[in-house]
């Protein structure tokens, strides 16, 4: 098992060898975000900014004007917390680059709430033209980072990565359609369709193992893959994310349901509009309803409700 942040560090080094326009910035979390691998390989194209995320964001804007493809990394919470700098210096400025926010969700554990990216998707999703990517596994992350490295960027991208090693569900070098969701487990006439985003995929798959349920992996939260939602109709739709239930995958799916008048009830599983606390990741995922046992229990309850 490997973490999605490892895939980022590894792929950036591979791609950086041939693509000389890639430049990396760090704000004193190079080891944790894995961007230091790039720094070690290509020190001339790496700038250590120090603990100054706003400054790093502005610098990315200036560099991108000259055709450099800038990857800037910090923890999801610290990076997206600099919302106004991202909004004005990158997003409204239309300065394409890749914001890499790692240690998303509860997984940082004992360090506590200040270090947890729990509202980051919500913040980034609100910015016009922002692309929000929350990959689920090492191989998937590698594929997306490769895509970002090899293609011209036409917008600001927010790549949300996890701290924890996660199980692999995709082959190495598998081709992903950039922007699309993936029907991971299809069931005819399912009792529910469950949408999962990011590193909770293995818990969602474990939780739903014996159920008559379709599971869809949704790495792209903005733009959201509307087609996959419209093509997988169900009376009960469930979203699972290691993020606030406000503004993330659950909200994005609810907007599609509302905009297209789908006759579905939506249940959003995530951090329930609260600030969690310090604790081991195992204890936190249990307490806040995001381990496979509690996801399973919740889905069974919702299916019961749906039947009655």
């Amino acid at each position, binding site marked *: 098992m490997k973490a999605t942040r490892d895939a980022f560090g590894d792929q950036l080094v591979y791609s950086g060898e041939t693509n000389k326009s890639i430049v990396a910035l760090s704000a004193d979390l190079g080891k944790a975000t894995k961007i230091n691998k790039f720094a070690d390989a290509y020190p001339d194209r790496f*700038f250590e900014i*120090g603990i*100054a995320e706003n400054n790093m964001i502005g*610098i990315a804007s200036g560099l991108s004007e000259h055709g450099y493809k800038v990857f800037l990394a910090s923890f999801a919470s610290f990076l997206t917390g600099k919302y106004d700098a991202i909004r*004005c*210096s990158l997003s409204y400025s239309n300065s394409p680059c890749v914001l890499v926010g790692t240690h998303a969700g509860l997984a940082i554990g004992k360090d506590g709430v200040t270090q947890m990216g729990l509202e980051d998707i919500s913040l980034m999703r609100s910015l016009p033209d922002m692309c929000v990517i929350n990959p689920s596994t090492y191989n998937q992350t590698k594929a997306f980072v490769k895509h970002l490295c090899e293609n011209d960027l036409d917008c600001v991208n927010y790549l949300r990565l996890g701290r924890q090693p996660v199980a692999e569900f995709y082959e190495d070098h598998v081709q992903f359609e950039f922007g699309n969701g993936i029907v991971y487990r299809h069931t005819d006439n399912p009792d529910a369709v469950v949408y999962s985003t990011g590193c909770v995929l293995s818990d969602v798959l474990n939780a739903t193992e014996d159920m008559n349920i379709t599971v869809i992996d949704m790495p792209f939260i903005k733009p959201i893959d509307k087609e996959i939602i419209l093509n997988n109709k169900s009376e009960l739709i469930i979203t699972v994310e290691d993020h606030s239930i406000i503004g993330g995958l659950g909200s994005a799916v609810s907007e599609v349901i509302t905009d297209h008048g789908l006759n579905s009830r939506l249940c959003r599983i995530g951090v329930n509009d609260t600030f969690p606390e310090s604790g081991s990741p195992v204890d936190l995922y249990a307490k806040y309803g995001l381990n496979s046992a509690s996801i399973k229990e919740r889905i069974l309850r919702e299916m019961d409700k749906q039947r009655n």
Partner: protein
Amino acid sequence: MKVEPDKLRKHVLDMIHDKQSGHIGGSFSLAEVVSYLYNTYDLISDNKDKLILSKGHAVPILYAVLYELGLIDTLDDFREVDSKLQGHPDKTRLKYMHATTGALGQGLSIGIGHSLAHGLKSESSKVFCILGDGELQEGQVWEAFMLAPKYNLENLYCIIDHNKSQNDGLVEDILSLGDLESKVRSFDWNVIRIDGHDMGEIQNAFSVKPNGRPTCIVMDTIKGKGVDFMQSPEWHAKAPSDEEYKKAIQEIDYESNS
């Protein structure tokens, strides 16, 4: 063609009087330095020198320059819907703006990005960032002050429009900057203090050899310079009445001709 400060001031007055909206005081305090920069460096061609107006509210003075140089046809749609002439600089709408600014404190960081890019490409183009003195109250500015010397950005210039006044009053009353020169010098910048309305002093300041360091030019300026009755904090974002407009134009004409 050379840009002249008082012609710029008159265009600024026209725009802000016409739309009854915009920032006169902080545009006027920049008239001389902006004229010097456009008359001396290539701030128009792609891949040349860059000017980042971090105090984006003073953008009328840049629109006035572009109009004088024939690069924009009209100033009539300033601050109007569908215009390139947004209330604050918008590089996505007007290519001569080298950064989108207006949320104060962000421009010097963007300038560092440009300057690092010039280094990566082994180009010697210069990057000029103009900041307000009140803007220095933003923490991000000091993050940028701290970083620039680390990368020896000797083609980076931070120009501080020290007109002593900000939105709600005098800088000294709102939040004093203290010994500004010493503060910036202690961050390992070259620091030069000049009269920002004296063309000779401006020219000398930009002629000093940077010796591997970024340069900060602290310009003592007068907010509303050019029109006596506009030299008070209330003219930060006030639009002139018809009568005030006439009086101001007369004064600029009189000063220009005398």
